């Protein structure tokens, strides 16, 4: 362990890998000093853990109804967070809901940046008309309010978890395209790209092999910062009844089904909302800290 640390912190790295890993290590040390970012990391880590172990952690089956035990308050023996209008255990449903949220977030995090990278790098690399047309399309998508565009898309595609993911991804890609284009413009005319081009590499090869890797770090930070927004939009779609179908325990859907009982049985809506809030706060804290580490300009002194 100690030898590894010394190797990582070596001011005179002997190989490219050592230098790169050393930078990552220094970044981690800086991140570790930021208590807010670390709490974000802990929350995101917990979300992953809870989602992975959901069937083990959930004390009850999240779908089994028990009408004799409906709308029990929190701290009832056997139902720590109480039960909902069908007598289902809220804690188990919140735990299982972590899986659904992670599933949506994960799929969006894979698809939206991919689309954005493609559009942004192509626009930035080729320039001219390609750039003008692609960026105009990006602007048009940006001009639509995200939730309303997602609503209209779900209306076309029909409700359901996959369609919600598709609708969110189609509204989430434009910022990535902007970031990727800006990065591409800075490297487009650099010597190493010219060298590859002189060796006879085509546009696709240069973009995929040389431009995309350069854009990746900034896109990844953007993804972390965007995840909270994705969680909120997914929950909003669920709340409006346009996302995941009942009886699946999606958090937004759970809030909406508890709305009828708000004034008498407050916990039915409150608990899943708390879960959304905590998880999205976690992603925001982590993204904020990561940005501070990777962009020293914005770091608090």
């Amino acid at each position: 362990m100690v030898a590894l640390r010394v190797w990582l912190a070596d001011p005179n790295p002997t190989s490219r890998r050592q230098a790169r890993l050393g930078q990552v290590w220094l970044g981690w040390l800086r991140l570790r000093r930021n208590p807010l970012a670390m709490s974000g990391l802990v929350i995101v880590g917990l979300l992953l853990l809870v989602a992975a172990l959901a069937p083990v952690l959930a004390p009850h089956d999240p779908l089994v109804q028990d009408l004799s035990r409906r709308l029990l308050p929190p701290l009832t023996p056997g139902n720590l967070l109480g039960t909902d209008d069908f007598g289902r255990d809220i804690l188990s449903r919140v735990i299982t809901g972590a899986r659904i949220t992670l599933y949506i977030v994960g799929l969006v995090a894979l698809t939206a940046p991919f689309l954005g990278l493609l559009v942004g790098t192509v626009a930035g690399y080729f320039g001219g008309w390609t750039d003008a047309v692609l960026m105009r399309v990006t602007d048009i998508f940006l001009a639509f309010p995200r939730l309303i565009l997602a609503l209209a898309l779900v209306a076309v595609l029909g409700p359901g978890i996959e369609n919600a993911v598709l609708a969110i991804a189609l509204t989430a890609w434009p910022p990535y395209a902007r970031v990727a284009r800006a990065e591409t413009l800075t490297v487009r005319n650099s010597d190493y790209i010219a060298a590859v081009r002189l060796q006879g590499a085509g546009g696709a090869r240069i973009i995929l092999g040389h431009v995309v890797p350069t854009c990746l770090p900034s896109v990844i930070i953007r993804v972390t910062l965007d995840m909270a927004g994705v969680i909120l939009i997914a929950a909003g779609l669920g709340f409006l009844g346009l996302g995941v179908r009942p009886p699946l325990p999606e958090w937004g859907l759970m809030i909406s089904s508890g709305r009828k009982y708000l004034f008498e049985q407050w916990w039915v809506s409150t608990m899943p909302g708390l879960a959304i809030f905590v998880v999205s706060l976690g992603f925001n804290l982590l993204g904020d800290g990561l940005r501070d580490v990777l962009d020293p300009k914005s770091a608090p002194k």
Partner: protein
Amino acid sequence: MADIPQSGPRSRVPAIALRIVTEIATLAVTLLGLLLMTFLIGRVVPIDPVLSIVGERATTEQYDAVRLALGLDEPLWKQFAIYVGDALQGDLGTSIRTREPVLQEIARYFPATLELATLATLFGVIVGVPAGVLAATRPGSLADQVVRIVGLMGYSMPVFWLGLIGLLVFYGQLGWVGGPGRLDATYEMMLEFTIVQYTGMILIDTALNGEWAMFGNAFSHIVLPAGLLGYVSMAYISRMTRSFMMNELGQEYITTARVKGMPEWRVIWVHAMRNVAVPLITVIALSYAYLLEGSVLTETIFAWPGLGSYITNALFAADMPAVLGGTVVVGAVFVALNMASDILYRLVDPRAR
């Protein structure tokens, strides 16, 4: 914005004029794209527009007649041309539920959203800007941390959930504010008969009519949703103010001003603020635009008869002309506000000219 021509040192006015022309051309293309998108969504949506007008029991002849009247037998590009032509004349189609022109309906719903968004933005600016400045002048202090955490919480809050909690606590438990809707039911009746509606915004209309009891009631209804939306907008504004202000305070002219012995409040609020205000205009316009876009979820929670509820209710009634018309209006407002803030930015900041 990428291909703005470089202006020479010749004269400044034509260059600005040229830019404004370019901006307007960009605006036109963006709006056309907006219409193309809603048009395509309207064509692929699995709801037959003819069937939703004539009903299930119509004869084939009736069906074909309506189909012809809607121009659905024309080639797609021609349908789009008709759609754009109609939209330019202010015809966004007819709502299937109410048989009223969509634009007319939207004009009735829009003031409610405008009132809510304006109040929320005011709150966001009045609280957010000083909070951001406070955080920027004492980086790392307790105040900075509090502003940062409160802001991040605003970013992470599911607004609809916060709205429900707010209703539960301030309306259900404490009874401090009015419940859902814009007015109590009794005042709702009065609104129809005793008030001259100048603007459709109840706070302004009641004040103009001198109906102060009703004004108070309207205020008690709007304060909670406006406060919640204002919180979210405040989170964004305070954060941006902080980062702009930090950036300015590191500049040399600030050091010069301090060395001259200028009082600190003057350094911050007069010298630095003048430069912070420039990018801040864009931020505030953007957050205003986001609130105007309907704040769909908040309006649903508070039964607020605004643009957001209009679009969602239309969606659930499968009233596609209303959904798409509403989307076009929202998109257009958004684009126009962006453009306005861009032009304002250029006028205020000499460096951007």
